């Protein structure tokens, strides 16, 4: 390669600096490993910062009857039993310690009258379980982890994007990327790589996700030969903003309902009585999202095509104290005072249950040296994630990934990246500038999000999914002809051109898996197969790269051992 690139070397390279990446880095540092953290944005801006409602952990500070068994049961039930039971168990058992640890590192949670960490109710959780800081829990978490990591001495490579994992034979030995600022290339050599890149929401039109959420980690893992699991399960959060147009999709925290918010349609009917009379507004997200969507489709939606969510029956001071950022968000962006009247809300693409298939204990993928934690990994949440289980997921499996990555680095030989891969990766990134003419990446992105929204959304059926898949494949061909204008210096068009490739690959995986699962379960709702089929409950779907095409396989759901199985039976 004619162009020079810089090289950095670490025992453990963490890609992504949200909750999972930072927690992994802290753990690997604690094991004595040299750790580098790469992130596309500035440190502290990752998606975790937007998490609002809280961290689920069975601390039993408020409801004394809570324990890990109930949390395990709620998680499995919410996931429609497609979860990796061992992940659900470890998660429920370890979450309280991970929360206490955050507190010891300086996080300040809201308190009970006794001075303990306060917990609030949330959808699908039997007990008041979410440790929180008003409605800005994610900010508290990321700031605490970031300061801890900086003090411990990790190297952070900000505004740097990884475009390819490098391999030495079967194992991962590093990564290739570019600095967003200058557009120069960089090679990271590492014995272990932890993916903590989050989700894929930017492939949909209405989403609560930021520009970063383009499925990079899933795409990197797929290209490196790893399996992706449960890709048909995409969570649409029931409550995003619907008006004005510019804010469509921005998250309205479930804590509004946790604090007593009520959903009604344009006729003033509290419609959740027809969808889940027992849990009402605090039903699981898949149920509430479908309920709102159905109300709108059947002509009972609000002026701007949503439902009303009202918390104004609570005292104004209480609302401002418990939901301060919601209060400001609606007042400043939508001219709505939520202490006086209802919000208009509707479903928004929010979270990916599917992702890299990992081992429960170590978060290792099927590729040696490659680990994944947080949203980019799959298994814990099954067919539907409960609110609050994401932040605890980041901490529990971030820590486990960091630990295992450091141990792997101790045993692994020195990384030896093969030069051919690096040249190829560089050529791919430069090709966008070299085409004499071509399409704008922004136009392609608009077409992709419109297709996913229309054809691979909340309700699915075969004909739509077939059409969606055909469009994705057509877009993949068009993506090879994208041309980027301007220089390599901080050029968002160039960055999007590469991110599009990841989005297209993941979109294909979602459509392929959704087409194959001929039943409705959790977040996957097929109009042509509306029932949950026990036979499908025994199978997870996986996709992997075979040659140049995507192969779909089934894997048996690993059976829950009898002692834990007894817990699940007592639930129903």
């Amino acid at each position: 390669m004619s162009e020079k690139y810089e090289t950095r070397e670490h025992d453990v390279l963490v890609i992504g600096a949200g909750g999972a990446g930072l927690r992994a880095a802290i753990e690997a540092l604690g094991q004595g490993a040299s750790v580098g953290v790469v992130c596309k944005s500035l440190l502290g801006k990752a998606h975790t910062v937007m998490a609002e409602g809280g961290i689920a952990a069975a601390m039993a500070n408020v409801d004394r009857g809570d324990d890990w068994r109930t949390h395990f049961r709620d998680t499995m039930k919410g996931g429609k039993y497609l979860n990796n039971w061992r992940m659900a168990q470890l998660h429920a058992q370890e979450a309280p310690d991970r929360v206490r640890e955050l507190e010891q590192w300086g996080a300040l949670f809201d308190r009970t009258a006794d001075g303990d960490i306060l917990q609030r109710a949330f959808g699908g959780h039997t007990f008041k379980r979410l440790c929180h800081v008003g409605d800005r829990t994610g900010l508290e978490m990321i700031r605490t982890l970031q300061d801890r990591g900086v003090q411990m001495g990790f190297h952070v490579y900000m505004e740097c994007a990884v475009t390819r994992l490098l391999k030495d034979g079967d194992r991962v030995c590093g990564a290739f990327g570019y600095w967003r600022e200058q557009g120069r290339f960089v090679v990271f050599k590492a014995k272990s790589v932890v993916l903590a890149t989050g989700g894929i929401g930017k492939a949909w039109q209405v989403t609560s996700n930021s520009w970063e959420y383009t499925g990079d980690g899933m795409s990197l893992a797929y290209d490196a030969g790893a399996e992706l699991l449960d890709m048909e399960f995409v969570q649409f959060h029931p409550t995003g903003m619907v008006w004005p147009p510019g804010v469509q999709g921005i998250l309205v925290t479930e804590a509004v309902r946790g604090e007593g918010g009520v959903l009604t349609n344009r006729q003033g009917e509290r419609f959740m009585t027809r969808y889940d009379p027992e849990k009402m507004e605090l039903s699981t997200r898949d149920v509430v999202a479908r309920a709102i969507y159905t109300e709108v489709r059947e002509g009972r939606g609000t002026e701007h095509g949503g439902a009303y969510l009202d918390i104004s029956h609570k005292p104004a001071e209480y609302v401002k104290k418990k939901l301060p950022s919601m209060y400001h968000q609606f007042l400043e962006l939508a001219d709505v005072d939520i202490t006086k009247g209802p919000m208009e809300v509707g479903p928004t693409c929010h979270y990916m249950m599917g992702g890299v298939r990992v081992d429960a204990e170590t978060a290792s993928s099927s590729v040696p040296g490659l680990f994944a934690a947080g949203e980019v990994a799959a298994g814990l949440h099954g067919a539907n994630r409960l609110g609050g289980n994401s932040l605890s997921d980041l901490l529990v499996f971030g820590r486990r990934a960091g630990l295992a990555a450091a141990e792997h680095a101790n045993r692994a030989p020195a990384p030896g990246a093969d030069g051919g891969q690096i040249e190829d990766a560089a050529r791919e990134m430069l090709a966008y500038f070299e085409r004499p003419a071509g399409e704008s990446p922004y136009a392609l992105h608009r077409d992709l999000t419109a297709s996913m929204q229309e054809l691979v959304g909340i309700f699915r059926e075969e004909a739509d999914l077939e059409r969606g898949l055909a469009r994705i494949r057509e877009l993949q061909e068009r993506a090879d002809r994208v041309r980027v204008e301007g220089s390599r210096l901080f050029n968002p068009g160039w960055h999007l051109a590469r991110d599009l490739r990841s989005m297209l690959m993941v979109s294909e995986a979602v459509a392929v898996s959704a087409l194959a699962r001929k039943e409705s379960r959790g977040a996957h709702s097929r109009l042509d197969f509306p029932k949950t089929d026990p036979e499908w409950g025994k199978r997870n779907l996986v996709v992997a790269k075979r040659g140049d095409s995507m192969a779909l396989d089934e894997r048996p759901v690993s059976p829950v051992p009898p002692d834990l199985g007894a817990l699940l039976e007592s639930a129903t």
Partner: protein
Amino acid sequence: MSDAVLKVFRGTSAGGELVEYRVPVAPGMVVLDALHHIQGHLAPDLAVRWNCKAGKCGSCSAEVNGRPRLTCKTRMDSLPLEEPVTVTPMKAFPVIRDLVTDVSWNYEVNRRIPPFSPRAGTDWKISQADVERVQEFRKCIECFLCQNVCHVLRDHDKKERFGGPRFFVRVAGLEMHPLDGVSRTKLLKEELGLGLCNITKCCTEVCPEDIHITDNAIIPLKERVVDDFYDPIAKILRKVFRA
């Protein structure tokens, strides 16, 4: 739907110019929406930082008609659209490209602040009132608008001797943490240059999180520095009552 004209800085640290773009205005539109429209249709290489688009991450700071703002929270209908809307990068930091500035200095300052260090033997019981006092400081989203507007940094560029309001807020959050056991007053006085602040409250005015930076963070910290360095009796008393 009417149009608005935006004059956006295009250039690098070597120089640049304001470039005009015409953008359709939709109801409730914010300046960041207008910038995204420019990226998507008129200038695909326009450099802008953003993430959450909901006022929670503090990435999209810039100067709108000369006022430091989060562009995701600045409504177009709050601006006089009969004239062009000027969007320029934060002045106190070096420009990388267009609206993106080099804010790495802030991360260097942060690294010098001793972390939370719990007092030995704490039982981790904290009252809500004690938590709330500190939570105000922990609301900070690190948009660096307070740093940008502070004249010690903006006009006098004393980055070598001054930490800036963002980090006084951070230190206040640590110093007033009910369980913290170390003092950072020496750092405030000798390294972060707290004395250079002459409490003009510009930082408080621009804070999108409404943190009372001057009144609740800077002034109490100044009092602590005075107590520790210029009032030996108060220092002894505080040690007695803290222990």
